[in-house]
Every structure is written in C-alpha cells, then in structure tokens.
C-alpha cells in the first residue's frame, strides 16, 4: 500500500479565517501554517490546542499574521514544541510582522497573549531552508523529504512539497502565477500529478484586471486625490504585499511625498535589501548589471512613529501604514483623523479580514459612520502614579526583606565557621584572586569598612602572609608553560557582544517602547467617526484569480485534491468545478474533520536486470 496521508483542518475552512491545517503522513504530524487573525481571537485556536503536543513539525508558508500569527502563542501556551521550517524571508519578515503586531497592540491595550520574548523564542528554533532544497527529516520522520518552492504572493512565500516513497503531497495556498515587480510567479505548475494537493479556494470567485490596467488605475486614483489636495491612506501589512506597492510607488511619477509607516519599517527595508536572491529574475539581473538595489528607496520616506508623520510638512501626501485591517496600528489612528475630510482617500489593496473595520468599510455601499475605539497609552500621573509607585515600593521592600533575611542567615553560618578556626582573619577579603571566596566578599565589605575588627576568637591578629615557594628540580625552577603563552588577544571582542542578539536590530522607537518601563496605562474612549472620505478597493493581493487557479489545477492534475480556506460559496464552486474538470477525488473537509487521502494506488518494486537494461532503447 502507499503512504498513508490524512488531512485535518484546524482553522480556516469554509470561511476566511486564518490558516492552520494538520497533515499527517504515516503518523508524522505536520502542522502547516499556524495563523491568527488581527483580533487575536483565542477561540480560533481551540482545535489547535487539542493537537498541539502531538505535532512533529511546523511548516510556514507565508510571512503574514494569517499564516504564522499564532506561532508564539501556540509555543508558549498550547504546548507546541516542534521544530519549525520556513524560508529565510518568511522567518525574518514573519518576525518583524509579529513585532509590529505586538507593538501596535501594546500601544492601545493591555495585550498579554504573547510578549516580544515569546516571539523571539518561538522563532528561535526555525530551520531556514532555501527554495528547492530537499530537506531530509530524521528520527520519526525518517524517509520524509520536505522542500519549499516558490509560491509568489509574498516574499519568501512557499509551496511545501512533502515527499515520501516517491509520493508527493503538495500544500499550496495563496500562490500567484503572475510575475510581479519583486517576485517570480509560482512554481506550482512544474509539479505534475502529485498524490495529494491541498489548496485554497479563497479567490475562486474573483477575477482580476490585467496588472498594467490595475496599476494605472491605482496611480490615477492617487493622483486625483493628491491634486485635489487630499491625503491618501493605504492600509498595508507589515512586510508582505507592501513591498510590491512600494516598488510601484517608487517607480511612479508622483511628485508628492510618500511615507511608509510601521513600527519596523526601516528594518523591514534593511532586511529586504539583502533578500535579492529570493526576488524576481529582473531584480536580480538589474543588481548584477548595475548594482542598483531595487529597495534603495529614493522617493519613499520610512517612518517608525507617528510623530514624525505629524511633523512632516503639510500638504497632500501618501501614507502606507500597518495594519491592513485598520483594527490597530498606525493605520487605525490615521484613519480616524482623516476619515472626516471628504478630500481624503482610503485605498484598500486587499480584502479586509472578516469582521474588521477594513471589511466594514469595503462593504457596498460604504457605511456613513463607524464606531471606533480610540485607545492611547498615557504615562501615569498624580494619584495613579503615586499608587503605582507605592505598589512598586512595596514589592521592592518585600524583595529586600527576604534578601536581608537570607543574608543574615548566611552571615550566621559564616560566623560559626570563623569561630571554629582561630587563625583565620577572613581570607575572603585578602585573597581576592580566589574566586570562590571572592564572591562572598561583597557582602562583608560594609562590615569591614567600619574598621579592623578582629574576630573575637583571634589570639594574635596579624596581616596575612603567603610564602612564595617555588619548586625546583634538576633543571631549575619548575615553570608552568601556560604562564608564558602569549595571550591570544581576542580581536572579536569588540563585536561579539552584538552577536547574541537574535533579532539583530530593532528600530530605536520600538526599542524605546520595549525598554520604556515608565508606568503607563491605557485610556480608551469610543467615538463615532463620520466617514466622509472616499473609499476604494483595488486588488493588489497578489493571488492567482479564479481563472488562473482553475487552469493551474487542471495542469497540475492531482490524484486527490483537498480544498481549504475560502468562503462557503467559493469552496463549493471550486469543488464542483474540480470534480468536473480536474479529478474525481475532491474533498473539502470541515474543521477537525479528518479525511483520509491515502492514495489507493498499489505499487511494488521490480529489479531490472542488467541483461534487460542493456537491451532497452528508450525513446522520447
């Protein structure tokens, strides 16, 4: 029999919820994607929490919240401890996305689902792979080979191919067949007849205009608003699709200031600059020929906090700000500010997640007014500050008290020790080079400062004296060769202390925010915003559209097809289409419904004898 394959969706089927699926191959459980939505709704993770401890490996396909957002939480709270596999950009940009999410949340709420440390530790055990790298799993997964392939959509975006015994299971969600400015199209079409294909139906009902037309419309919309003296807000993700938008804007002839505002914008661009290997052929080529890095942005200003934007010269401008859902982050604040001016434009480039502000605004007709919660983190003042300080002092005092108690205890022990040896005058203070005692000396220094107090048991106090004896042998004084070794001056010292920092660099403001331990609290007030600005949606999601999906699926022609994520209608539509045109085995399981897609193909191996093979003439 073939390899046994089961697929169990944990989140994101028959709707547009984040993606998270369990694929087990001969008992080895892969968690493919570990997404969360912008609400950080823990109820979505219920199914995951039930299986988290049984998972043997995690595969991440894209660097946005929908594909990896729940990783830190799952690692910390749900007992997920499997090794994680991702491409370098997914790892790096995913990390930045999570930082941005956390920082945006922390500004407006007492966010406690995960901390930056959790993010760091979750991403610490990510094994980074390159495209088309065949990674052989060991141990329980012996015989399984995983390899990431180009998916398009986001930088580093991955189609996972899991191979065992020559049977391929392919997980391909959110792929893009089109070649874009910064990305190549997907490599999905190069796989033919895999045993199982898991794909999404998210775009099964959408059609897109040609890229050129869309880009022209995009620039035109911006120009109209800017020329009329309005501002444009483009709510974007942290480090995904925004890269393509940045390149479009960078190339555009608009002469108005353009700002890219996220908590991690400058480090995003800094890292992206070193990911040229992962980008489209044309970017790589232009770099090889002219050494012009496409992401050396000349027309776009990177900002990491909103004050800088407020200080920018007045006048029409374009601002790309995270989050795309308008639920939190800079885009939320800017929206509230700008929505009331009819000259302004809010341009959505992707469909908002379900039940978010962005989604509400994309409704047709758009709502006249929306209720939003404005929250702000303010430093504590007055009574609150006092109360806080008191609380802190109390905690400190308690800690101090307990440490004093400990110290006294140890002192008592020490005193009794001394008492037993009449000749000792606290060697701890004199023989500093001895480390063991050296560590104690701190505690006793304050006693000694008062004066030379001989221990009560001392008979004849004297300064300690050490005789420097040396051993002699037939050749003279015995020397220790180690004393004469030239100390290797460690030239790395200057730099090494930086090496321990896993995430390298964070923007200063973010660092400030993290280090900012000033007492603060979150103040929120609800208000209704009159939406007078114009709202537009243009599809720059970078996903294959309905027609492309269908033709790709027909080309790939999997033996079995599993459909996940996508509205109920879209899923049903694609299922019916595929049953007719692609293959007879199309499944669209419900959440936590395990479907068995073990291939019913039988196989056995035959050895081909040398005699036969030497007679065989192969023809194409």
């Amino acid at each position, binding site marked *: 029999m073939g390899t046994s394959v089961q697929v169990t969706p944990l989140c994101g089927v028959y709707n547009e919820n984040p993606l998270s699926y369990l694929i087990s191959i001969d008992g080895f459980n892969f968690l493919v994607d570990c997404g969360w939505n912008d609400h950080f709704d823990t109820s979505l993770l219920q199914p995951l929490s039930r299986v988290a401890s049984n998972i043997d490996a995690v595969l991440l396909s894209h660097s946005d919240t929908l594909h990896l957002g729940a990783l830190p939480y799952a690692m910390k709270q749900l007992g997920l401890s499997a090794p994680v596999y991702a491409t*370098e950009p997914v790892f790096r940009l995913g990390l930045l996305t999570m930082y941005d999410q956390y920082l945006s949340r922390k500004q407006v709420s007492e966010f406690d689902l995960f901390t930056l440390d959790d993010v760091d530790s979750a991403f610490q055990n990510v094994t980074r*792979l*390159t*495209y*088309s*790298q*065949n990674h*052989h799993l060991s141990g329980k997964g012996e015989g399984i080979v995983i*390899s990431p392939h180009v998916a398009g959509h986001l930088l580093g975006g991955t189609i996972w191919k899991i191979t065992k015994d*020559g049977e391929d299971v392919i997980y391909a969600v959110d792929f893009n067949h089109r070649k874009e400015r910064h990305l190549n199209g997907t490599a999905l079409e190069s796989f*033919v*007849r895999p045993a199982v294909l898991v794909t999404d139906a998210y775009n099964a009902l959408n059609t897109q205009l040609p890229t050129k037309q869309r880009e022209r419309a995009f620039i035109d919309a911006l120009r109209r608003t800017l020329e009329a003296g309005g501002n444009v807000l483009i709510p974007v993700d942290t480090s995904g699709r925004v890269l393509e938008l940045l390149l479009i804007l960078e190339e555009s002839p608009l002469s108005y200031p353009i700002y890219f505002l996220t908590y991690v914008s400058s480090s995003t661009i800094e890292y992206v*600059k*070193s*990911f*040229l*290997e992962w980008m489209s052929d044309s970017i*790589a080529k232009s*770099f*090889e*020929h002219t*050494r012009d*890095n496409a992401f050396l942005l000349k027309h776009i200003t990177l900002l990491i906090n909103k004050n800088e934007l407020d200080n920018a010269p007045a006048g029409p401008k374009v601002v790309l700000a995270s989050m795309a859902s308008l639920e939190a982050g800079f885009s939320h604040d800017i929206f509230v500010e700008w929505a009331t001016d009819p000259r302004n434009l809010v341009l959505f480039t992707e469909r908002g997640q379900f039940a978010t502000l962005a989604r509400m605004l994309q409704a047709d007709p758009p709502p006249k007014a929306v209720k939003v919660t404005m929250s702000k983190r303010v430093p504590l003042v007055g009574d609150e500050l006092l109360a806080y300080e008191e609380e802190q002092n109390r905690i400190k005092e308690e800690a101090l008290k307990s440490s004093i108690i400990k110290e006294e205890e140890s002192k008592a022990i020490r005193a009794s020790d001394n008492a037993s040896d009449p000749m000792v005058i606290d060697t701890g203070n004199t023989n500093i080079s001895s480390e063991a005692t050296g560590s104690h000396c701190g505690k006793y220094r304050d006693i000694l400062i008062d004066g030379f107090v001989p221990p009560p048991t001392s008979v004849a106090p004297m300064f300690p004296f050490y005789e420097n004896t040396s051993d002699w042998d037939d050749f003279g004084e015995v020397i220790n060769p180690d004393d004469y070794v*030239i100390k*290797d*001056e*460690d*030239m*790395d010292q*200057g*730099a*090494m202390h*930086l*090496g*321990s*920092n896993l995430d*390298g*660099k964070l923007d200063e403001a973010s660092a400030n925010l993290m280090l900012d331990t000033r007492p603060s609290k979150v103040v929120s007030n609800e208000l209704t915003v009159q939406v007078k600005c114009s709202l537009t949606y243009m599809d720059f999601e970078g996903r294959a559209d309905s027609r492309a999906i269908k033709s790709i699926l027909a080309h790939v022609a999997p*033996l079995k097809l599993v459909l996940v994520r996508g509205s109920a209608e879209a899923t049903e539509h694609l299922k019916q289409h595929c049953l007719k045109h692609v293959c007879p085995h199309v499944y669209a399981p419900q959440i936590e419904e395990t479907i068995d897609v073990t291939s019913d*193909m*039988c*196989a*056995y*191996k*035959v*050895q*081909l004898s*040398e*005699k036969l*093979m*030497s*007679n*065989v*003439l*192969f*023809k194409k």
Partner: protein
Amino acid sequence: MASSGPAQSLKRRDPPANREADRLTVTPLGAGNEVGRSCVYMSFKGKTVLFDCGIHPAYSGMAALPYFDEIDPSTIDVLLITHFHLDHAASLPYFLEKTTFKGRVFMTHATKAIYKLLLSDYVKVSKVSVEDMLFDEQDIFRSMDKIEVIDFHQTVEVNGIRFWCYTAGHVLGAAMFMVDIAGVRVLYTGDYSREEDRHLRAAELPQFSPDICIIESTYGVQLHQPRNIREKRFTDVIHSTISQGGRVLIPAFALGRAQELLLILDEYWANHPELHNIPIYYASPLAKKCMAVYQTYINSMNDRIRSQFASSNPFDFKHISPLKSIENFNDVGPSVVMASPSGLQSGLSRQLFDRWCSDKKNACVIPGYVVEGTLAKTIINEPKEVTLMNGLTAPLNMQVHYISFSAHADFAQTSTFLSELMPPNIVLVHGEANEMGRLKQKLITLFTDRNAKIITPKNCQSVEMYFNSEKMAKTIGRLAEKTPGVGETVSGLLVKKGFTYQIMAPEDLHVFSQLSTANVNQRITIPYTGAFGVISHRLKRIYESVESSTDEELGIPTLRVHDRVTVKLESDKHISLHWASDPISDMVSDSIVALVLNISREIPKVVVESEELKTEEEDDGSSKKAEKIVHALLVSLFGDVKFGEDGKLVINVDGNVAHLDKQSGEVESENEGLKERVKVAFRRIQGAVKPIPLSAS
C-alpha cells in the same frame, strides 16, 4: 517508451560496451598537479559536467586556458562555477562565447555579481596585445545572460543531472557542488575552508557521503596556525614596522581575502587610537563597487557579521581610504597599502614594491597563497637581489613576511573533512605536484583500513571508475493490483524519468506520467475500377483472416483483415483503407495497397477460376512449396541437410547431427550450440514463409 533495437543486441555480448554505461570518467583539464586554471571534466552515463573554468595566473593568452581541446564543448550538459576567483572563473567568457558549448552554466548569486566586476577589471588591466586577448568586455556582458544562478542547498535538475551546493567558506559566494547522476554522487569542493573567519562561514559538511570526492590540495600536508595567532602576527608586524617609520605593502587579490584583511586592520586601528594618523590605503578600483555586493549578500556570511551589520555596516571602513593609482599616492612617512595583484607580477603592488624594496625599514606582508612563477613566490625565499620592472636589479632589503590568510583547507581540515565524509574515491586537484604527493601519502596511511582510493591525475589524465548501480523499477497502477508470484512475468510499459523507472499498464500511462497516448486513425483512398471480389480473393491468399461484411451506415461492402485494416468500396472508382496506426497494421495496410495497385495493373490477365478448386490446389501446392523453400533455406545456411525418417530433416554440420521436426519445430541434437542455431533459423524461416499468424498481435 521502451523498445529493444537490433543495434543494441549486437553490443550485448561485448563486455566493454556493457561496462561503458557504468564508467565514470574524471579528467582534470587544468589544476591537475598544479594550482591555477581549475577545470575538471566529469562524464557518466552520457551526462557530462564541467566544474570550474579558470585561467592560470602565471601565463597569458591561450596558454593560460585549461586544455579545452581535449573535450568537445558541445557535449557538456552543465558547467558549475564554484567561486569568482580568476583561477576558477576567468575562462568562462571565452568558453561561453568562443567555443561550441551550449549547455547551462550555474553559479551562486554573489559569485555572479562579483564575476562581472572582476573580469571587466581583469580585461582592463591585463596588458596583453589585442590578439592575445581571450575575450573582451562585450563577451563578459553577453556571458552574463547565459549564467543561471543557484542558491545554497537549492536542488536543480538538468537533463537528469541533479546538483546542489554547500557553503565552501573560501570567499563570499563560494560553493561546493554535489552532483548526483543516476544515484552516483560526486562532490567537487572547489576551494574551501573549514574555519570560520571574520565574515565567512566555515564550509559545511554535506549530509550525504559522496561516492567520489574531488578535493583541493593547495596546502597539502601543511598546518595553519590558529586564526587569532595569525591575526596577531599580522597586526604586530604592521604595528612594529610603522612605529619604526617604515611602510607596509600588502599585495593581495582585490576581492575575497582582501575584505577579511581590511576588517582586521580596521578593527585594529579602531582599538589603537595612536595609529589613527597612519593612513591605510586600499588600492583597488573594485573596492567600492563590490561593497554593494558584500552588503547585499550578507545572508551568505556568518552570524557574527550579520549581527554586526544590524548596527552598522562593517564594510564601511573608518580608517581605510581608497587609492586610485600611484600618481595619487602621497608617499611621505609610514603607511599601509594593500594593492593588487597578489603575485606582484605588475600593476600597483609591483610599482610600490620596486619603490620600497631596498629600504630595510619597510615590510612586505604576503597574506595568502602565491602561485609558482610569480615574484611573490620568489621573494618568500628572501633572495639578496630582485629584478625590478625596468630590468635593473636592486637589493632586497625590506622584510618579507608570509602570513597566510588564504582560506584554503590545511591538512588537519582536509583529513577531518574526508574522514567524516568517508568517500570511497578521492581525487586530488588544485595543488603543486609535490604537495599533492605528500598529501596523498599521508592520506593513504591515514585511510589504510578504509580502502579508500586516492588518485592524483595530471592534466588531461582520465580517471576511470565503475559504478554498477542496481536498477529498480516501481510497478504502479492497475498492473500492481496483484503482486506476481515467483516465475510470473510482468509486462507493461517501462517509463524512465530522469533515472527512475516505472512499469505501468499502457492504459495508466496518462495517469502516472506526463506522456499522453493518442491513436492515429489512417485512411487512404486508392483508385480501383475492378471487382471488389478480386481484392477479397487475393487478400484471402495472403491473410488467414479476411472477413467480408457490409458497412452498416453506407451499405457498401467491406473487408476486414485480421481485425486491423478495413477495406471499403467507396465508389465504382475508389476503394478506401481504414486502420488505427501501429507497426503491424501499417505493414498490413501497406501490403494491401501494393496488392490493390498490382491488381489494377494486371487486371486484364486475371482469369477467374472456380474458387474452391483453386483453394484446394493452392493449399496443397503451397504447403509443398513451403517445404521446398524451408529446405532450400536450411541448405543455404547449414549445407548438409537431408530428408530423414518420419519427415524429419537431418542436418549435419562438421559431424554434429541435428534432427529437426518440421511440424513442431523441435530440434534434437547432442550439440547445444547447433541445436539453438537450428531452432532459431527454423523459427525465422517459418516466420518468413508462413502467413502472419493471428497471434502476432
């Protein structure tokens, strides 16, 4: 699809031909018992791979090329370049543009970016005459379009050759290539270093053990000092020289190791404020251009530099200033100058050397491997006098220090690398003959118990190895629904994809492979005015199964020959033939066409006789006739053939007697060889004489 051809069956009994398919050949076209012009040719199972394409730095013009005339460049499938150094990549534009090569070229991203800069510079500074130029800038530019990039660990398959690369350490973007052809793995290390340094990672240890390891042996049995001691010596020499008012010349190759040395110097200067007034010059036009490359491919470097990069760009040197040419150089007081070329053949490093060599306060630090035949190699031995560029001799008073920073593996690294990898075959390249010989001896004693073969081929000397890989085919689809028992035959289509084989039922072909099946229905119309019965009659004389019927739709008479070909009477003047194309049906239809055309020509002569009578006679006559023919043919083959008792034929060849039963084809003979031959001959004669049996399909 598989079919056995007669051409192959001739070769079958030829043992060398049989081994041909298992033979793997490795031929160094350069870098065999020498350092420079790396180029190693490898061929296995009709697939050909060329590793590296360098020039020899000590020669110029065509003499510097590897021995390309030993091979046919058009047969090479893949060319893999390990890193951008001239001795590994510089003949590439020549090979791509001036030879018949039409395969694919791969190198890593960083290598490709630097390759262009480096070679353009090489073309500009090399002072050979135009005729001697191997290529010009246009060739380099054109070659860029042909070069494809590969990322570390990325697996690429070209024409059944699978390959991927590992980090090699040596310089930025340096790779070791692992090539897998039909399950036989070959590792080509190129230049590699197992020691992590300031900016590069150490070479990786491949996950799989290769069958053959083609490994560099530059440093032979030498051992490197630990890196920090070398760095200390380096900085101490420079520090003491400049504090005595001397000048320091560091002849170094512009890219690669130079960056490492600059990192050391910049850091040392930063830690020693008293040196801040002493200038360090880096004389290379490439320096600035390459910075962008070094900044971009930071992901190929080690974690240390990456974390440093996060705070500030470590390649943005604070104490090092560029120097364009000797004219711009204000030579007053102590200074440190790093200049290319590393061998002091010509250029700025030589100009400075000539100027400084007679002053004993000055020092020359040679920081890497120097190729035989260059001035740098000469001065390491500290001769009393040297010849200057203008032909005069001058005393060599300056101190010469040789502190190797070249990131090549030393003996310790090579031996641990090989003992961890345990390749059964080791081919040494890229090393001076003596060093290589010493390394070979030492490795042999080290690996005596492991039975590893160590080979040191010279240039153009082929190493042949045989790999007999067992071929397994996977039977899938409906053919595999039941597992065959012992002695049963499995028959189906053998499909080869790359080097994997599958056996499947013809009906499953489109399910399991990209191959599609199609039926070609043929139809041919022939003018014919005679009676349809004549055709039917004639066909019956040739074919055993000819059925007459009428077409249901058109109501015209048809003939069906062996259920393969249908003959229809279209009109008074035409008949048509219909058949689904396959070799046998094609042949049958051919014969029918010939027959019909013959009838048309002979028609006046035809006399219709009574059919029954004719058939009887024919049956009788034809069987007699057949017997005669069989006899005659056997005579022509074996000579002495007599009719024996009970209708058997007695064949006598050189005293060996065989009895042949004409009915069953059974042969009795003492001599096995004769028996076989007679049997085969009779079977073939039967096939030629008798009508085609129905079972032929």
